[in-house]
Each structure stands twice: as structure tokens, then as C-alpha cells.
């Protein structure tokens, strides 16, 4: 079938769906939605509408990127508003069915807003400020189109980019991608067109395309959401890349921890083969392209391209010295194109709308959009797609809604364990590969975690260094031993040990690791240490000189203390919750924490009723009044 025929057929199927007299309920059932209870909501809609006598179709969709609002539901009712509801529970389902599906009340008090877009243009909720600053290319279908139905994708112009490409010469396709200025979204920002050209011009007739869906940064989940929400964009992008590079086989290396993404990919692959947009003789052309899924077995270093190739070959995921680059000699020593999910998923739109179109977005050096996973202490966590060059401040405040609970902003970590922590004063840094690098962070693959005054920067550096140490593959010495050394020093600081001179030693070890490691894991592992030393030195000094953790996180420097003026005497919550039996009553019935017995597990703070809020943390521990430190000896 030609693409035109496919499109007509898909459009007809889809229109029958959406333009008929049917009410549609879309339930976001990506991983984040499921964790918040979406499957129970889905089930409730099916149950409540089953006997209602009207035609209602309940469909599973992906994620709109509003993770803190999950479970999300969209109701499309003929001749009525399309409305998006948040924090939906089975009880609310009952209300919605009675109110809006059977009745005429759109229950706006339960709604997040109305929905516009779809059919190719990005789906947005105009009432939400967080959508105003966004430009959604990758997310354009997310949370609206069904990831389970290829017709939804085709009806919105899907696979037309591949059809265009197949009618052109490979060089024309490469030129178009070069014109777009697209740079790799996997972290390093290498120009995609140049990589494609190198692979296409490399000698050899077996070539491969690998999609890097390893997403190892512990706090980033954009690639997972994209695959769960719009898997065909990736498949189409891979086929285009395969055509341009001269490859007939592609592999998607995806984390085994993403079972839903794998399931949706498998389904999408089967549907694409059935429609003839993947497989042999795609869309009636001479071009064959097959895609296989390879499940990663969990190692951060596997995200590095040469290590990934080793993993696909069935070996330990050890990185290799480059050059030769994979584009010359990669999988089984054949020319191999390795690209990130987002890079590949952008290709269909670039081919369909032209390189100029893409180059017109973002900045001159970095065209297009950047997709971030916002997490941490923000009001709105989830996904955000913004034009390159948008400032961090816009992401944190306009889209992220600022810091939760009125706390103070402290820093933002970009790029996970390979990235850096940037302070308030750098919030006006525009998001692009060069500006972030200059500030000491990296674009990484797009994890962005916001910290507030309750987070300790020394502890954060320790956390990331511990991650890199665990994940170091051990092949090169600077990374294997250096990360251990850095960790040991950071652990000392969190205990109030060490000297100011140690800070300089730490700095020089970090710089050596950066200069001498074999692969990016080692080379970038000192970034959290180097940036926190650069921007938060005072916090290190407070730990070392004053034995004080300003955020009251580091256990050895912090004491739990019950404020006598707030303690309610009669309430025994803390006493019952304490697993160490460290809390006792003084002569007046006020509770006291025995500092010798206390294991600092945090239970008392968590159970103290909010109306009393009597448990506080003090740092340094010498702040605990002398008379209230231990149980007095009973005579």
C-alpha cells in the first residue's frame, strides 16, 4: 500500500473514532500514571460505563508530562468541551460518569482544563501556564493519541516523513538533516547529520542503526515516556536513519526495567510490519529495514555507545577507546549509527517539514527543542519541552511552578551523575550544550532535579559520587579508584571530619579523574564534586569547621530535638513510633529524645502531628540544651 492509501485508511478509522457520536475517555496509563493508580481508574471507567446504555469508548494513552497531576483522564464528548481531569480516583470516576458522560455537567471543579490540539498539532491545555512556554515537538501526540494504535499515528501524518525520504536520494535526506542543525540529544550534542554522513560514507555493505534507550541517569525518564506514549515516532525515525545511513538492521537497546515501554514497542513493531512501513520492501520501495529489541541488563555504563555495542554483542559492557568511532567500526566491526531516542524521534518531523523549519526553532548553535524531566522539589514535576535557549529560570519557575511548600531554591542538578549543580545566580543560563558546559554542568540526556534549602550539597555530591563508583566498570584506573577516593573524602565531610586542605586535595583528584579516564562515565563523574566545590564551598566549610550541616541532612551532624514549648505531653505518637526506644517523658510529661540511643531514623519527625510540629532537627548537635540530652539516671 502507498502512504496515501495508508493515510486515507487510518484517517477513516480514526475519524470514525473521534468524529462519530461516541464519547471517548482517555486514561493515561504510562508508568507514572500506573504508579498513581491509573489502572484502577481505567477499570472503574470500564465498569461504570458498561451498563450505561450509551456508546463510550475507554482508551489507554501515554503521558502528557504532567506527572504530579496523575492519574489524568481526558473526556472527549461530541459537541462538547474536551476536558482533562487530574488526580482521578475510582470515586471521581463515578462522579464524572454521572455528571459529564451521562449528564451535561463537565465537572469543572475536578478539571485541570480544556484540551486543544491533536490531529497533528500539539495537544495542549491552554489554561495551564506551564504550557505557554513550551514548544512540543516530541510530546506533540503524548497523552492523547493511543500508543497502541498505529492508525492514530498515521492519521496525524505519521510515516509520511519516511515515505518522503524513500522518494529521495540518501544524500538529499542527509542534507536535509544537516540543514536542520539537529544535534544528538543523548548528551554530547554531536551533529546528527555529520554522524549520518560518516556512517553512510563508510565502506561496507552491512551497517547498523542502534537506538540508545538505556536512559541510565537515575532521575530521568523522558525516553521512557516517549516510547510509552508515541512509539511509532521512534520506529519511523530509525527507518529514516537506516535509509540515510545505508543500514538494513536496527536495534533498540532499552532498559529491562522498562517493561511497559518494551511491551508497547513490541506491539508497535508488529503493527508497523503489518502495515508495511517496516520490514522488506517498505511502502513498495526497494528498502528493507528490520528492528530488533535488545533488553539492557542494568549497567549505567551501557549507555556509552561503545559499551552498548559490547552489550549487544553479548559481552561485558566495557567501553572502548575511540577512535575508531562506531560510525566507522561499531557493532561486529561494521559501521554503526548510535543515536538517542529523542534524536531519532525528531527525524520524521524534520523530513516532513524540512530542515529549515527545524533550524528556525531554538538558537543558532542549537536548533529545535529540548526535552527535560523535571523532578525534585518543584510544584509541577513531569516533562517539559522548550525551545533551546530557554533559561533555567523559565523551566524552574514558569513551567515547574517554583519550589514546593514555600521553601527556598538552592540548586538545580542537570545531567544526573555526570552533570553539575548550578546555583540561583546561574538560573539565567540559557539551555544549550555550550552554555551549560561553560557553567560546569552538561545537557546530559535531560534530567533536571531541583533542590531546596532542605537538601545538603555535600550529601548530594556524595550521592552522585557513590552512584558513579558503583557503576564504574573498572576497566580504567582513574575512574575505578578515583571515584572511591572521592567518595571516602566526601563521607568524611558529611561526618564533620577532614580539613580545609582536603578540599583542595579533592579538587585535584577530581580534575585528574576528568583528564585521564577512558570514557565519559569517568570523565564526567567529578562534575557534581567540582560544581558543588565551586558554587557551594561555604557548605563544605560549615561541615568541616563548624560540624554543622546547614540543611540538617547529614546524620552525624544533626540531632532530633523535641521543642518543649510545642510538645503536647498527652500525645504519645513519637514514643510509639521510635524503633530505638529513645524517647522518654520528663517529669512534666514532655517528650525528650535520648541522644545516645537515637539512631536518627526520622520516625518521630514523621509522626508528630502537624498541628504540634514539635520535632525539629538541630545542627550542630551541640545546640541541644544540656539538660535535655539523655535520660537522667534513675536513683
Amino acid at each position, binding site marked *: 500500500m502507498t502512504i496515501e492509501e495508508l493515510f486515507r485508511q487510518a484517517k477513516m478509522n480514526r475519524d470514525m473514532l473521534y468524529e462519530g457520536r461516541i464519547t471517548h475517555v482517555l486514561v493515561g496509563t504510562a*508508568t*507514572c500514571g*500506573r*504508579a*498513581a*493508580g491509573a489502572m*484502577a481508574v481505567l477499570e472503574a471507567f470500564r465498569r461504570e460505563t458498561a451498563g450505561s446504555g450509551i456508546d463510550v469508548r475507554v482508551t489507554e494513552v501515554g503521558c502528557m508530562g504532567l*506527572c*504530579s497531576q*496523575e492519574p489524568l483522564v481526558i473526556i472527549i464528548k461530541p459537541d462538547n468541551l474536551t476536558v482533562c481531569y487530574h488526580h482521578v480516583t475510582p470515586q471521581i470516576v463515578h462522579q464524572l460518569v454521572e455528571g459529564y458522560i451521562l449528564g451535561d455537567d463537565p465537572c469543572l471543579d475536578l478539571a485541570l482544563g480544556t484540551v486543544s490540539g491533536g490531529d497533528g498539532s500539539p495537544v495542549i491545555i491552554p489554561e495551564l501556564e506551564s504550557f505557554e512556554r513550551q514548544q512540543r515537538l516530541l510530546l506533540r501526540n503524548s497523552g492523547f493519541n493511543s500508543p497502541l494504535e498505529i492508525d492514530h499515528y498515521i492519521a496525524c501524518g505519521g510515516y509520511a516523513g519516511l515515505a518522503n525520504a524513500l522518494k529521495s536520494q540518501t544524500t538529499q535526506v542527509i542534507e536535509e538533516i544537516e540543514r536542520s542543525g539537529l544535534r544528538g540529544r543523548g548528551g554530547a550534542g554531536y551533529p546528527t547529520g555529520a554522524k549520518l554522513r560518516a556512517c553512510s560514507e563508510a565502506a561496507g555493505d552491512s551497517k547498523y542503526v542502534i537506538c540508545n534507550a538505556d536512559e*541510565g*541517569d*537515575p*532521575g*530521568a*525518564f523522558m525516553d*521512557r515516556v516517549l516510547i510509552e506514549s508515541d512509539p511509532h515516532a521512534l520506529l519511523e525515525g530509525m527507518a529514516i536513519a537506516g535509509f540515510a545511513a545505508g543500514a538494513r538492521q536496527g536495534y533498540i537497546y532499552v532498559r*529491562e*526495567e*522498562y517493561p511497559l515501554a518494551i511491551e508497547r514497542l513490541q506491539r508497535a513493531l508488529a503493527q508497523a510490519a503489518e502495515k508495511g512501513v517496516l520490514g522488506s520492501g517498505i511502502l513498495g520501495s526497494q528498502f528493507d529495514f528490520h528492528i530488533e529489541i*535488545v*533488553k539492557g*541488563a*542494568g*549497567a549505567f555504563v551501557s549507555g556509552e555507545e561503545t559499551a552498548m555495542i559490547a*552489550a*549487544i*554483542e*553479548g*559481552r*561485558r*559492557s566495557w567501553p572502548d577507546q575511540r577512535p575508531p568511532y562506531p560510525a566507522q567500526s561499531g557493532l561486529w566491526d561494521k559501521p554503526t549509527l548510535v543515536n538517542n531516542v529523542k534524536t531519532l524521534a525528531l527525524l520524521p518531523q524534520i523530513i516532513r517539514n524540512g530542515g529549515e523549519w527545524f533550524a528556525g526553532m531554538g538558537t543558532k548553535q542549537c536548533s529545535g527543542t529540548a526535552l527535560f*524531566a523535571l*523532578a*525534585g*522539589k518543584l510544584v509541577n*514535576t*513531569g516533562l517539559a519541552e522548550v525551545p533551546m535557549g530557554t533559561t533555567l529560570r523559565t523551566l524552574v519557575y514558569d513551567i515547574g511552578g517554583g519550589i514546593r511548600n514555600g521553601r527556598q531554591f538552592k540548586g538545580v*542538578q542537570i545531567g*544526573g551523575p555526570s552533570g553539575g549543580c548550578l546555583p540561583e545566580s546561574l538560573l539565567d543560563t540559557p539551555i544549550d550544550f555550550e552554555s551549560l558546559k561553560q557553567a560546569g554542568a552538561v545537557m546530559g540526556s535531560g*534530567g533536571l*532535579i531541583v*533542590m531546596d534549602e532542605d*537538601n545538603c550539597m555535600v550529601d*548530594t555530591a556524595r*550521592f*552522585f559520587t557513590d*552512584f558513579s563508583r558503583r557503576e564504574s*566498570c573498572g576497566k580504567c584506573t582513574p575512574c575505578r579508584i578515583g571515584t572511591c577516593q572521592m567518595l571516602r573524602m566526601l563521607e568524611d565531610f558529611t561526618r564533620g571530619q577532614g580539613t580545609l586542605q582536603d578540599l583542595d586535595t579533592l579538587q585535584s583528584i577530581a580534575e585528574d579523574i576528568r583528564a585521564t579516564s577512558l570514557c565519559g562515565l569517568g570523565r564526567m563523574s567529578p562534575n557534581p564534586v567540582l560544581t558543588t566545590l565551586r558554587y557551594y564551598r561555604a557548605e563544605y566549610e560549615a561541615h568541616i569547621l563548624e560540624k554543622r550541616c546547614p540543611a540538617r541532612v547529614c546524620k552525624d551532624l544533626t540531632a532530633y530535638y523535641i521543642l518543649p514549648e510545642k510538645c503536647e505531653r498527652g500525645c504519645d505518637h513519637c514514643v510509639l*513510633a521510635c*524503633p530505638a526506644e529513645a524517647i522518654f517523658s520528663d517529669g512534666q510529661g514532655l517528650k525528650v529524645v535520648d541522644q545516645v540511643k537515637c539512631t536518627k*531514623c*526520622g*520516625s518521630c519527625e*514523621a*509522626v508528630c502531628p502537624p498541628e504540634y510540629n514539635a520535632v525539629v532537627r538541630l545542627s550542630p548537635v551541640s545546640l541541644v540544651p544540656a539538660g535535655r540530652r539523655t535520660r537522667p539516671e534513675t536513683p
Partner: protein
Amino acid sequence: MDTARKAEIFNEGRRQRRHLIDILQDIQSCEGYLSREAMQEVAAFLSLPPSAVWGVATFYNQFRFTPPGRNPVRVCMGTACHLAGGQLVLEAMARELKLEIGATSEDREFSLERVACIGCCALAPVVTIGESVYPKMTPPRVEEILVQMKPAEGRGKSGDGPT
């Protein structure tokens, strides 16, 4: 492992080095872990020295070499969960289950693991037990949940169920 599944895992089409990890994953998903015997069988099937199979299996975080508990407890130690107090939750789990991280209880009821981001950062800190996800955990919630899971020994506390 039944013979049909075994024949599927060790099918002729997979007698290549590149299927090593794949095969190990399939065995683990059937049996819950990789036994010595299973790895030897894989080595023979692929004509590899057992040390090569062991070398690959121990490299990756996914593989385990002891049977997991019937209720595998996984505490997320990704960045968002760490910043929201995941460490205290992990310690509480270890204390209440009387288990070290990576260990399985003697009655095989529980095992305890730390994992990196499971993709629900908005609900941090997160714990999963089997297929259930427990969002916004605190040390006292750990106790509540475990009490609910062992009703026989319950101490009559109530709490929210999984979502």
C-alpha cells in the same frame, strides 16, 4: 522450568554469543535467579567457558545468584527519591525486615534491594513490593505496610493500601 519453556530458551536459533544476555534474562525471569547449574548449562549451549558466562552475569546489576523472596521489596534510591528521604526509608525497611540490602529472609518471604529511578519521581520516595507501588514513603509507613502484609502478626495498626 518446564520443558517447553526450556526448549524455547535454548532454541537452536539462539546458539550465538550475542544471545547470551538474552538467555540469562529469560532464565532469571523463569526461576527468579541464576543458579550455578543454569549458568553451566548456558556455557555448554554456547560453547563458552563457564567463567565467561559468570563474568558477564556478574557484570550487570540485573542478575542475582540467590533466590528472591516471594515479596521482593525494592526501595528506590534514584536522585529524586534520595532527595526526598529515600535513605531513611531504606534503613527503615532493612530494620523492620531484619534484612541486609541484597539479602533474602530465611523463610524466603521477603528480599530487599535498592534500585535506581523507577520513573515515578513525582511520587518520591517510592518503594515497590512485587507489582505494587507505594508512593511518598516515610519510616512509619514502612512499618504500617509490613504489618498489613503480615496480618497474622498484625499489631492492629491501620494504614493506606498500595495504589
